[in-house]
C-alpha cells in the first residue's frame, strides 16, 4: 500500500503534488498554532468531546463551508477547462475526477452538513427542549460525517480520486473498468457518513415527537421544525437503499461478487434503481428544510403570521411522500417501457403542485406585510424566480419524451444547478444569516453580505442560463473539451465568467465573516430580528442548557404573541429555578469515527489487517458505551443564576 501511494504521488499531476505539499504545510501550521497558543485542551474539551447540539451544529457549519470551498474550486477548474474550445488545462482523466468529486462533495458534504447544522442549532431551541433526544448519538453522527468527508478528500492526494461520476454507475465503477482505489474511496466514505445520516434522522424524529415543550401541539410547531421532521422521515426510508447500493458495489469490488458486473449474471440496472431510490429523495431531503427556513424568514421579515399554515404542513408531507416515488425519471431512456415511464412522468410532475402551494403561501404572506430587506430576506426573494425557472425546466425533463431529447445534455446540468443552488444553497445561506446571531452573538455585516449576494446571483444567471442553450445546441455533460467547429465557444466562455463571479461572491462571504467577527454588531437582546419563535426568547449565544426553565406554549408563533401581549414572563409557569440535568461530554464518538475511518482506509487498499483493527475498534467502542454508567451531571441553581445574570 505504501509503495502504491508513493508511486502515485511521484507520477501525479503537478497540481496534485502541489496540493499534497500544501496540505502537509497547512497541517504543520495548524499543529504549531494550536501548540503555541496552548489550545489543545480547549479544542478537546470544548469541541471534540462535546455533546452539545449547538456546538455540533457549528462544527457541521464550518465543515460544510470548507467543503463548499473545495467543491467550488473544483467547479472553477472545470469551468476554466471549458472556457475555450480545445483547451488542455486539464486532461480527460483529471476532468473526470474533478466532476466526480465536485458533484459528490456538493451534495453529500455541503448540502447535507449545512442542513444538519441548521437542524442541530435550531430545532431544540424552537421546540423548547434542553437538548436532542440522544446527544451522544448526535456526536457520533457528526464524527462519522467528519471522518467520511476526510476519507473522501484524502483520495485526492493518496491514490487517486473516484472518476465515475457522482452516481458511479457500474460497470464503469466496477473493478473491470476502474481498477484503482478511487471508487473504493467513494463507496467507503459515503457509507461511513451515510450511517451517520440515518442516525441523525432517527435522533431528530424522536426529538421532535417526544421533546416539545408543554403546550406545543404538533399543529403549533414552527414550520422549520415541521420541515425537518418531513426531511428526517425521508432520510429513514431513503438512506438504507443507498447503504445497500454502496455495500453491493463495494462487495463487487472488494470481495469479487457479481451483483452489477457484466459477467456471471450481474445486473447493472439493479444498482441504478437502488441508487436513485435514495438519490431522488435525497434532493427532497436537502430541499424540504429549506422550505421551512423560507417560511420562518418570510413571516419574520414581513411581520406577519405565515399564510396557510395547515396547507404548508400538508404540502410538506405530500412532497416527502410523492418525492419518494419518482426515481425512475432519472433513467427514462434506459428501456423501462412506456407504461412505467408514464407513471413516473406523472408522479414527477405531481410534486410541482404542493410546491406551488408553498410558493403562493409565501407570496401571500409577504403581501401587505411590512417587509424588511435583510440578508435572509434577500436570499429568500432571490430563491423564488430561480426556483420557478428551475421548476419549469424540471417539468420539461419530467415529461418522458422530452427527456429523450435533453438526457445527459447541458440542459440537465443547468436545471439541477438551478434547483440545487437556487433552492438548497440559497436557502441554507438564508438560514445561516438568520440564525447567525443566535449561534455566535453577533450579526454579519449587511453591506459585505449584499456584495456577496449580488455577485453570487448575477454570476449564477450568467453561468447557468447559457447552459440551457448549450444543451439545446447538443453539448453533452461530462465532456472535457470540444472542437471550435461546434460553435459552443462563446456561450461556454460566458458561462465561465459567471462561475468566477460566483467565486467572488463566495470570497465576499468569507471576508464578511472575518470582518464581522471583529466589527460585527453585537446582539445583546437575543432577539435581533424581532423574531416569532421560541429560540428568540433566549440570550445569544444560548447557554448550554438552553432554557433555564422549560417554557409553556399557548399558540403558534409563541414568542411573538407573548411580546404582543407584553407577557414575556408567561413563558414560564413559576419563577423558581430547579437544577438541570445535562449529559456528560464523551471522547467515544470521536474514537468511534476514527475507528470507522481506519476500517474504511484499510478496505480502500484491500489491507484487511488494518480494516479488521478498525472494525474491532468500532465494536469495542460500542461495547464500552453500552457498559458505561454515564448518568450525566446536574447544574445547580446557583450556577444557572450566575449564567442567566451574565
Amino acid at each position, binding site marked *: 500500500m505504501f509503495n502504491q501511494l508513493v508511486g502515485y504521488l511521484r507520477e501525479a499531476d503537478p497540481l496534485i503534488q502541489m496540493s499534497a505539499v500544501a496540505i502537509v504545510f497547512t497541517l504543520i501550521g495548524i499543529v504549531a498554532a494550536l501548540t503555541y497558543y496552548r489550545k489543545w485542551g480547549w479544542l478537546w474539551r470544548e469541541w471534540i468531546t462535546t455533546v452539545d447540539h449547538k456546538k455540533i451544529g457549528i462544527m457541521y457549519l464550518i465543515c460544510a463551508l470548507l467543503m463548499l470551498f473545495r467543491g467550488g474550486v473544483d467547479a472553477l477548474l472545470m469551468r476554466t477547462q471549458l472556457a475555450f474550445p480545445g483547451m488542455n488545462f486539464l486532461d480527460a482523466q483529471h476532468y473526470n475526477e474533478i466532476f466526480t468529486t465536485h458533484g459528490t462533495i456538493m451534495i453529500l458534504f455541503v448540502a447535507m452538513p449545512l442542513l444538519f447544522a441548521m437542524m442541530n442549532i435550531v430545532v431544540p431551541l424552537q421546540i423548547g427542549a434542553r437538548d436532542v433526544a440522544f446527544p451522544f448519538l448526535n456526536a457520533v453522527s457528526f464524527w462519522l460525517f467528519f471522518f467520511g468527508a476526510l476519507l473522501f478528500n484524502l483520495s485526492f492526494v493518496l491514490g487517486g480520486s473516484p472518476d465515475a461520476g457522482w452516481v458511479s454507475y457500474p460497470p464503469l465503477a466496477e473493478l473491470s473498468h476502474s481498477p484503482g482505489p478511487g471508487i473504493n474511496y467513494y463507496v467507503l466514505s459515503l457509507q461511513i457518513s451515510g450511517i451517520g445520516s440515518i442516525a441523525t434522522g432517527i435522533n431528530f424524529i424522536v426529538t421532535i415527537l417526544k421533546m416539545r415543550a408543554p403546550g406545543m401541539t404538533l399543529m403549533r410547531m414552527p414550520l422549520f421544525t415541521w420541515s425537518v421532521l418531513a426531511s428526517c422521515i425521508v432520510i429513514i426510508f431513503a438512506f438504507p437503499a443507498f447503504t445497500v447500493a454502496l455495500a453491493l458495489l463495494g462487495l463487487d469490488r472488494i470481495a469479487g461478487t457479481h451483483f452489477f458486473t457484466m459477467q456471471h*449474471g450481474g445486473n447493472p440496472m439493479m444498482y441504478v434503481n437502488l441508487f436513485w431510490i435514495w438519490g431522488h429523495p435525497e434532493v427532497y431531503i436537502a430541499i424540504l428544510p429549506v422550505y421551512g427556513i423560507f417560511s420562518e424568514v418570510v413571516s419574520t421579515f414581513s411581520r406577519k403570521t405565515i399564510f396557510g399554515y395547515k396547507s404548508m404542513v400538508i404540502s410538506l408531507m405530500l412532497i416527502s411522500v410523492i418525492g419518494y416515488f419518482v426515481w425512475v425519471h432519472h433513467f427514462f431512456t434506459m428501456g423501462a417501457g412506456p407504461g412505467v415511464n408514464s407513471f413516473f412522468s406523472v408522479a414527477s410532475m405531481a410534486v410541482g403542485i404542493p410546491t406551488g402551494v408553498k410558493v403562493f403561501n409565501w407570496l401571500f404572506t409577504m403581501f401587505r406585510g411590512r417587509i424588511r430587506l435583510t440578508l435572509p430576506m434577500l436570499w429568500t426573494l432571490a430563491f423564488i424566480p430561480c426556483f420557478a425557472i428551475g421548476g419549469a425546466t424540471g417539468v420539461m425533463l419530467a415529461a418522458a419524451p422530452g427527456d429523450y431529447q435533453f438526457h445527459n445534455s447541458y440542459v440537465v446540468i443547468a436545471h439541477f444547478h438551478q434547483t440545487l443552488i437556487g433552492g438548497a444553497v440559497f436557502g441554507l445561506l438564508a438560514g445561516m444569516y438568520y440564525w447567525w446571531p443566535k449561534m455566535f452573538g453577533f450579526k454579519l455585516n449587511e453591506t459585505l453580505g449584499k456584495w456577496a449576494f449580488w455577485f453570487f446571483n448575477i454570476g449564477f444567471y450568467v453561468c447557468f442560463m447559457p447552459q440551457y442553450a448549450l444543451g439545446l445546441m447538443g453539448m453533452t455533460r461530462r465532456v472535457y473539451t470540444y472542437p471550435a467547429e461546434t460553435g459552443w465557444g462563446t456561450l461556454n466562455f460566458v458561462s465561465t465568467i459567471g462561475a468566477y463571479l460566483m467565486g467572488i461572491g463566495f470570497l465576499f462571504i468569507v471576508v464578511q465573516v472575518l470582518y464581522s467577527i471583529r466589527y460585527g454588531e453585537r446582539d445583546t437582546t437575543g432577539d435581533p430580528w424581532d423574531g416569532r419563535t421560541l429560540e428568540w426568547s433566549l440570550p445569544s449565544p444560548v447557554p448550554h442548557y438552553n432554557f433555564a426553565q422549560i417554557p409553556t406554549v399557548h399558540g403558534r408563533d409563541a414568542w411573538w404573541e407573548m411580546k404582543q401581549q407584553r407577557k414575556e414572563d408567561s413563558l414560564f409557569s413559576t419563577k423558581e429555578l430547579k437544577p438541570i440535568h445535562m449529559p456528560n461530554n464523551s471522547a467515544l464518538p470521536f474514537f468511534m469515527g476514527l475507528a470507522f475511518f481506519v476500517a474504511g482506509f484499510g478496505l480502500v487498499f484491500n489491507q484487511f489487517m488494518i480494516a479488521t483493527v478498525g472494525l474491532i475498534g468500532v465494536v469495542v467502542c460500542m461495547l464500552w458505551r453500552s457498559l458505561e454508567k454515564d448518568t450525566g451531571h446536574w447544574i445547580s441553581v446557583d450556577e444557572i443564576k450566575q449564567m442567566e445574570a451574565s
Partner: protein
Amino acid sequence: MAEVTGSPISNQQSFEHGMEEEEKHILGFWIFLASDLVLFACLFATYLVLRTHTDGGPTEAQLFDIPMFTLETFILLTSSFTCGLAVREMRNGHFGRLMGWLAVTVLLGLAFVGIEVNEFITYSLEGATMQRSAFLSGFFTLVGTHGLHVSLGIVWMISVGIQLIRDRIQPTTARKLFNAGLYWHFLDVVWVMIFTVVYLMGVMK
C-alpha cells in the same frame, strides 16, 4: 426531580425523568427498525432480481437442504419464544429465571449462527461461492446480512446480561432488555421472510 432541591447535586435521577428517557429510547429503536426493514427490503429485491442468474452454476434447488433450513427456522423461532419468556420474567421481577431464559436464548442464537456458518462452508466447498454467480452473490449477502444481525444481537444480549448482573432490574436495564428483545423478534420476522422467499420458493421449483 422534586427531591433534588437546592445545591446538592446527586446522580440519582427521578423515576419520572427516567421513564421519559426510556420512552424516547424505545421510540427511537422502533424507527431504527423501520429503516433496517427498508435495508432488508432492498436486499430481498436484489435477490429476487438475481435468483435466476445462475450463469450455469448451482441453482437453489440443487443447494438447499430441507432438513437443515427447517432446523434453523425451528431454532430461531424457539429462541424468539424464550426471549419473550425472559422479558416476561423481568416484568414479574424474577431475576434468576430472567437470566436463565436469556442464557437459553443466547445459546439458541449461537446454534443458529453455527448451522448457518456450516451451511456457508459446505456450499463453498462444493464450489458454490459468492463469486460464482450473481444468484449466489445475492444469496450469501441476503442470508449473511441476517446472520450478521443475529450475531450482533447475541453480542448485545450478552452485554445486557452483564449489565443485568451488575445493576439488576431497573429502568435502564429493563429498557435495554426490552429493545434487545424487540430486535430479536424483528430478526425472527425477517428470517420467516427469508425462509419463505429464499428457501421454500427455492426448493419448490
